[in-house]
Structures are given as structure tokens and as C-alpha cells.
């Protein structure tokens, strides 16, 4: 379980080895430390005691602080042990075919999941809206064509293949978001995908950006746990402001986790009136979205013959990246 702090004025401390939450000096929650695996702060104005931070780091439970746009601001966890060999191999892999393989895996994983989401949408609409279903199906087929294009890209360094893969990926994304926009048009106006720096104010884009940022934080955490450097990416270009490898790892989890949750929320009418005038999610909408997201993270999917919650798959995929870099195993994209 995760403890989510979404209200200013709360105090989170510890007493007798348990996590306690106080509101206006009254204890509202007492929970055993063994039940919690993550604490996330979605709001400001809550306080946390140093005794609790000691206890959490002893049990290696991380705390993540998020901004109101969902950006992970701070990660609080115990000191990691050194993994210098892995990190050195990681930097070397950026200039070798190992990195090219990984970059291709991340991109194809994303496209395969986009394709399967579109075809499952088409399946659901086969009876109610056959013409739309046919169009979605055609589009999912053309994304399949793009996957084959990515396999054909060749190069010795990640720098050589990056722009080509990104171009194909962008074309596929164009097809994907156009289809999604058509599928959602009955319920909500979705003007096409707008990224965070474009400051969208329609609920779908705001919700997508919010949950993508939260997912990025968790991918970041998974990489840190495995000892990888989250800033040295393969598909995404190295940058000091954005963890490129976390973005890489996130690509294949975008559709099965975030897109599904947001589209479901749209059809359940949870996103009507969810955005305030600054283009931020309202407090209640933020919490319900996070709740659906956490529920989705806990639901079990089968991948490589193992049925596990998605959050465990993220950790395993991060570990597979490190195995691939050390050339002890092969990475395969997460396609449940």
C-alpha cells in the first residue's frame, strides 16, 4: 500500500514503530510500517517528523514529493550502495550496439502498446460504432508498419539512430492521438495531444501530463534502486534537466498504465470540470486520478510468464536494463 498525503495541515510522525497521521492534533491514522511501500506527498503544507524519516530509511521506504503539476520534486531515501561498474558500462553502452538495441526496444515497446490499446478500443466498438472500429483497426495496423520500420533502423551508436527512431515514433504518435481523439469525441473535446510545456487547459491533456509526470517519478525511483544513472539515456538525448533513462523506461508503461486510466476516467465522467483556471487539476480530481492510477499499478499483468503487479514489473524492467547493459541477459519491451 502507499500512503498519499493530499491535504495541507497534516502531521506525519511515528509512535511505537508505527506511522501515525495527525490532523489538528487528533490522530486520524495509525498504520504498520510493514504495510507501506511508498509515501507520496501531492500537496504542500504537510509536515513530517525526522524520526519517521529515520524509520523509513531503515526499512528502505522512499518518500516522493510532487508539485501540483505532478512533477517529482524530491526523492527521499537512504544512501545507496555504489554500483560504479554498472554505471561505467551504462555510459559505454551509449556508444555501442547494446545501446542501440535498448533504444529500439523502448520505441517498439511503446508502439506495440499503442497498437494493442487501439485494437482493444476497436474491439469494444465493433458493435456500437462499426465505422469507427474499422478506422481504429486500420490505424493500429499502420502503427504495426511503423514497428517494422524501427527494426530496420541501423547504426553503431545511439546518436546515429536516435533521430530516425524518434521520427518514426512521432509519426506513430500522430496516428495514435488522432485515433484517440476520435474515440473520445463523443464524451469530451480532446484537441490532440499537448505536452506540459505547451500549457494545455483541456482536462484530458492536463490529466495525462499529471499522471505521466508521476509515472516518470516512479520509473526514476526504479532505476535508482537498480543502481543505474537515470540521466544517461539511450533513446532520449542526455540532458541535465530531464532524466533521459527514466523517460526511456517510461515509454512502454505510458499506455498500459496512464492512458488506460485517463481514458477510463473520461468515460466515467470523472474529468468533467476537473481543471481550475491555471490549468491545474483540482484537489479532488487529483486524488481520484491518483487513486485510479495506484489501483492500476497494483493490478496484475502477465509478462514473460510472470503475473505481477505493474509496479513490480517496472522494477523488473529496470533490472533487465542493467542485465542487458552488463550483457548478462536480453531486454525485451514490456508488452503484457
Amino acid at each position, binding site marked *: *500500500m502507499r500512503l498519499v498525503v493530499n491535504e495541507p495541515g497534516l502531521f506525519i510522525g511515528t509512535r511505537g514503530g508505527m506511522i501515525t*497521521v495527525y490532523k489538528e492534533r487528533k490522530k486520524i*491514522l495509525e498504520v*504498520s*510500517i*510493514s504495510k507501506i511501500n511508498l509515501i507520496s506527498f501531492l500537496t504542500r503544507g504537510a509536515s513530517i517528523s525526522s524520526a519517521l524519516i529515520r524509520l523509513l530509511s531503515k526499512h528502505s521506504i522512499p518518500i516522493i514529493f510532487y508539485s501540483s503539476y505532478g512533477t517529482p520534486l524530491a526523492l527521499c531515501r537512504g544512501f545507496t550502495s555504489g554500483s560504479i561498474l554498472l554505471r561505467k558500462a551504462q555510459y559505454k553502452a551509449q556508444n555501442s550496439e547494446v545501446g542501440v538495441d535498448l533504444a529500439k526496444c523502448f520505441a517498439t515497446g511503446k508502439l506495440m502498446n499503442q497498437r494493442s490499446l487501439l485494437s482493444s478500443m476497436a474491439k469494444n466498438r465493433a458493435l456500437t460504432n462499426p465505422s469507427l472500429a474499422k478506422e481504429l483497426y486500420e490505424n493500429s495496423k499502420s502503427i504495426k508498419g511503423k514497428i517494422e520500420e524501427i527494426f530496420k533502423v541501423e547504426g553503431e551508436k545511439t546518436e546515429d539512430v536516435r533521430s530516425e527512431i524518434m521520427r518514426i515514433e512521432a509519426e506513430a504518435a500522430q496516428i495514435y492521438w488522432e485515433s484517440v481523439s476520435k474515440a473520445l469525441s463523443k464524451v469530451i473535446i480532446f484537441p490532440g495531444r499537448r505536452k506540459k510545456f505547451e500549457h494545455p487547459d483541456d482536462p484530458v491533456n492536463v490529466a495525462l501530463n499529471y499522471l505521466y509526470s508521476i509515472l516518470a517519478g516512479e520509473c526514476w525511483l526504479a532505476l535508482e534502486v537498480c543502481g543505474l544513472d537515470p540521466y544517461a539515456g539511450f533513446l532520449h538525448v542526455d540532458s541535465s534537466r530531464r532524466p533521459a533513462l527514466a523517460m526511456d523506461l517510461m515509454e512502454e508503461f505510458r499506455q498500459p498504465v496512464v492512458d488506460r486510466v485517463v481514458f477510463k476516467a473520461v468515460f466515467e465522467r470523472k474529468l468533467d470540470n476537473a481543471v481550475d483556471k491555471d490549468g491545474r487539476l483540482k484537489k479532488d480530481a487529483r486524488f481520484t486520478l491518483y487513486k485510479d492510477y495506484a489501483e492500476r499499478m497494483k493490478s496484475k499483468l502477465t509478462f514473460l510468464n510472470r503475473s505481477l503487479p505493474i509496479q513490480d514489473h517496472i522494477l523488473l524492467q529496470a533490472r533487465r536494463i542493467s542485465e542487458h547493459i552488463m550483457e548478462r541477459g536480453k531486454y525485451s519491451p514490456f508488452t503484457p
Partner: protein
Amino acid sequence: MFTLVIYDITEDELRAKIAQVCKKHGLTRVQKSAFLGRIPSGLRKELIASFRRLIEGTENNIQVYVICRADISLKIELGKPYKGEESEMLI
């Protein structure tokens, strides 16, 4: 494996302490003096060790049962269910 703890303790202070220990080890209260939860066996051993320390030399009784999932699904509950301590903040 599930762990069921039931106890019969006369002193108020000790009884509260036992309940606290159960909660600390991740069990949830299912009745006034019964706790149930799915915890790893290491944690259960720790729990039993703390019980032993607490009730040593007193005239009290604690029973710990280990139950598998197949058997716990045969549970029958009658009457008004015990009100658990659920919270919105835990996901």
C-alpha cells in the same frame, strides 16, 4: 499465510500493549481481542517473541494460529461485522 492472534488478558495496560504490538506488525483488528493479517513468517516470529517477553510470568493466555489462504476463504461471519479502521489516505 494468514496469522490469527487471539488473547485473554486481565490487566488493561498489558492488553493495550499486546494490541499495539499486533498493529505494529501489520495485523488488523477483527474483534475486540482478535487480530488477523497476512504477514511474512519472519514478522510472525518477531511478533511471537515480543508476546513472549510481554506475558512472561503473568497468568495470561495468547494463541497464535497460522492459516492458509484456502482455509481462510472458508470463514463464515455472522451478525454485525466489526468496524475496521479504513482510511482514505491508504492506497
